[in-house]
C-alpha cells in the first residue's frame, strides 16, 4: 500500500518497532517457525515480482533458492566453512549461475524464458537427485547452525532476528533498485518493451540486472533456510514450490513490489497450517484454490486498498 509522503517514515518506524518486539509477545514456537519461513519465502517472492514486472515470468524461483541452500549446505558440511562465509558465497554463486544462464535464456524473449524456466525447475531436482556428492535424493543432513563466538543460534527467537535482518536487507536492496535510474528503466519496460527499446533502453541489460539481483537474494535466503532447518532435500525445491511461491506473489498483489510478497507469504504460510485436510485430497484442494485465486482474486490483498495497478512500494 502506498502511503502518502509524510506518513511513510513514521509508519515504517512503527512497523520496525513492532517487528523487533514481536518475539517477546508471541510465545507459540510453531507460529514463530511459520513467521521465519514466511520471511525467507518473501525474499524469493520479491525476486519473482521484480522479474514479473519486466515480463520475465519464471517458474524456477525455487530452483535458485535451492541452489543457494545447496551451495551453503555443501560448503559448510564438506569444507567446514562457517555460516557467515557461506551466506555471501551462496548469494554470489547463485548470481553467477544466473548470469551465465541469463546469457542464454533472456535473449529469447519471454515465451521461451517461461518454457525454459519450467524445464529448469524440473531438471534441477532431477540433477540433484542423481548427484551423490550432495547426498542424492536423501539430501544433506547435519548442516551446522550459525554461531557468533560461543553463542549458537538455536532458539526460534534468535533465528527470527536473523531472518528479519536478511529480509530487511533484501527489501532495502530491491527498494534501492526501484528508486534508482534502473527502477525507472524497469518501469518503462513494464509499460511497453517496444517503446522502451525505441528510446534506447537496453532491455536485455535491465532484465539481466533484475534476473541476477533476484538470484542473489534468493541465494542468500536459501543459505539461511539451509542453516535454519539443518536439512535440505531436492524435492523441497521442485516446480510445485515455485508455483506456490508465485501464488504468494499473486495473493499479496503483483504490483506491490516489497509489501506484496511479504503479506502474501505470511498469508499463504499461515492459512494452510490451520486448514489441515485429509492427505489424499490435499493436492486437489490446492489446485482448486490456485485456480480460484487466479480467476477471482487477481489483484491480490493489497489490490483491494488501491485501485491503480501501476507501481508502488
Amino acid at each position, binding site marked *: 500500500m502506498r502511503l502518502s509522503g509524510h506518513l511513510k517514515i513514521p509508519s515504517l518506524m512503527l512497523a520496525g518497532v513492532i517487528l523487533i518486539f514481536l518475539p517477546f509477545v508471541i510465545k507459540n514456537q510453531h507460529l514463530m517457525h511459520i513467521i521465519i519461513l514466511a520471511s525467507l519465502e518473501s525474499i524469493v517472492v520479491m525476486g519473482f515480482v521484480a522479474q514479473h514486472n519486466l515480463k520475465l515470468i519464471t517458474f524456477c524461483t525455487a530452483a535458485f533458492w535451492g541452489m543457494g541452500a545447496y551451495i551453503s549446505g555443501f560448503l559448510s558440511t564438506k569444507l567446514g566453512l562457517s555460516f557467515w562465509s557461506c551466506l555471501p558465497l551462496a548469494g554470489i554463486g547463485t548470481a553467477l549461475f544466473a548470469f551465465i544462464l541469463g546469457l542464454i535464456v533472456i535473449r529469447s524473449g519471454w515465451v*521461451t524464458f517461461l*518454457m*525454459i524456466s519450467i524445464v529448469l525447475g*524440473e531438471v534441477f531436482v532431477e540433477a540433484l537427485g542423481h548427484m551423490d556428492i550432495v547426498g542424492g535424493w536423501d539430501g544433506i543432513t547435519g548442516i551446522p547452525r550459525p554461531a557468533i563466538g560461543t553463542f549458537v543460534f538455536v532458539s526460534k527467537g534468535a533465528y527470527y532476528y536473523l531472518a528479519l535482518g536478511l529480509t530487511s536487507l533484501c527489501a532495502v536492496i530491491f527498494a534501492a533498485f526501484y528508486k534508482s535510474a534502473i527502477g525507472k528503466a524497469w518501469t518503462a519496460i513494464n509499460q511497453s518493451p517496444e517503446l522502451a527499446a525505441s528510446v534506447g533502453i537496453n532491455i536485455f541489460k535491465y532484465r539481466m540486472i533484475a534476473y541476477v539481483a533476484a538470484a542473489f537474494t534468493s541465494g542468500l535466503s536459501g543459505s539461511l533456510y539451509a542453516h535454519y532447518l539443518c536439512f535440505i532435500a531436492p524435492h523441497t525445491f521442485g516446480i510445485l514450490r515455485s508455483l506456490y511461491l508465485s501464488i504468494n506473489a*499473486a495473493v499479496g498483489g503483483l504490483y506491490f513490489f516489497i509489501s506484496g510478497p511479504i503479506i502474501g507469504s505470511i498469508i499463504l504460510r499461515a492459512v494452510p497450517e490451520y486448514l489441515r485436510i485429509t492427505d489424499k485430497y490435499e493436492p*486437489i484442494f490446492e*489446485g482448486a484454490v490456485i485456480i480460484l485465486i487466479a*480467476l477471482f482474486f487477481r489483484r491480490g490483498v493489497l489490490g483491494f486498498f488501491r485501485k491503480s495497478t501501476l507501481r508502488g512500494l
Partner: protein
Amino acid sequence: MSFTIFVQLLVNGLVMGSVYVLVATGFTVVYGTAKVMNFAHGHFYMLGAFIYGGLVMSGVHWAISLVLAGMAVGVFGLIAWHIIFKPLYQDVFLTVAASIGMGLIMVQGIIVTAGERDIIVPSVFKGVLEIGDITVPIEKLAIVAITFGVMLILHFFLRTKIGKALEATTIDRDAASLQGINPGRMFGLAMALGSVMAGIAGAVVVPYLTAQANMGNTITLIFLCIVVVAGHGSIKGAVIVGILFGLIKSIGYHFLGSMDIILLMVIVAILMYIKPWGIWGVEFKRTI
C-alpha cells in the same frame, strides 16, 4: 555397439519421437493460435492414456477406444478453455499458474479414482517383424504408423476451409476477424485440436509404456524443449525436432542411463544460444 543394437535404438527412438511429435504439435497448435500456454498438456496426455486403458480393458475395440480417448480429452480441453483459459486470456502468469494447478488436480484425481498402481494394458498387435537378425515388434511400428496417420489428417484438415480460418487466426487475429472469422471460436477449436492430439498420443503409448499417474511430468520437459528449439507455433519444426529428440534420448539413454536428460539440456542450451527464436521460429515482435 553392434549393428543390431543400433537398429533397435533407432526404432525405439523413432517410437518415442513420434509420441513427442504428437504431444509437441498439440502444444504448438494451442500456443500458436490461442496464445495459451497450457502446462497441463502433459497431463492431458496422461488422461488419454488412462481413458484408452480403461476402455480397452472393458472390452471395447482398440480403434474405437483410440478415437473415443482422443475425443474425450478434446472435450475436456474445450471445457478447460471455457472455464479457465478464456477468462484469464492474455494474463500469462495466471494462465500458467492455473494450468499447473489444473495438472495437480488431474494427477491426484487419477490417483484417487484409478489407484496408485501403474495400469498395464495388453497390446493389440502381437507378433514381430523379422529382417535378418533384427526383430521389431509390430506394436512399435503401429505407434509410428498411427502418428503418421494423425499428422496426415492434421495436414489435410489445415487445407479445409475451417483449417484455413484457423491458420489465418494464427497469423493475424485482427485481420482474420475482419474477414468474418470468429477468433474466440477458433481459439476453442485450436484448444480442442491440441488436446485431441495429446489424448491420442497418450492412447498409442499405453501398451508400450504403462499408464502412470505422473507420466505427464516427464513428457512436459521434453515437449517444452522441442517447442523452444523448433520455434513456438511451427508445426514443421515440432515434427522434425520431435523425431530428432526421440532418437537423441534413446541413444543417450543407452550410454548415459537416466542422466540422458542432461545431454538433452546441453543440446537445447547450445541450440538456443545459436538460434534464440528457435530454428523455425519467427522473431515475434510481441515476445520481446
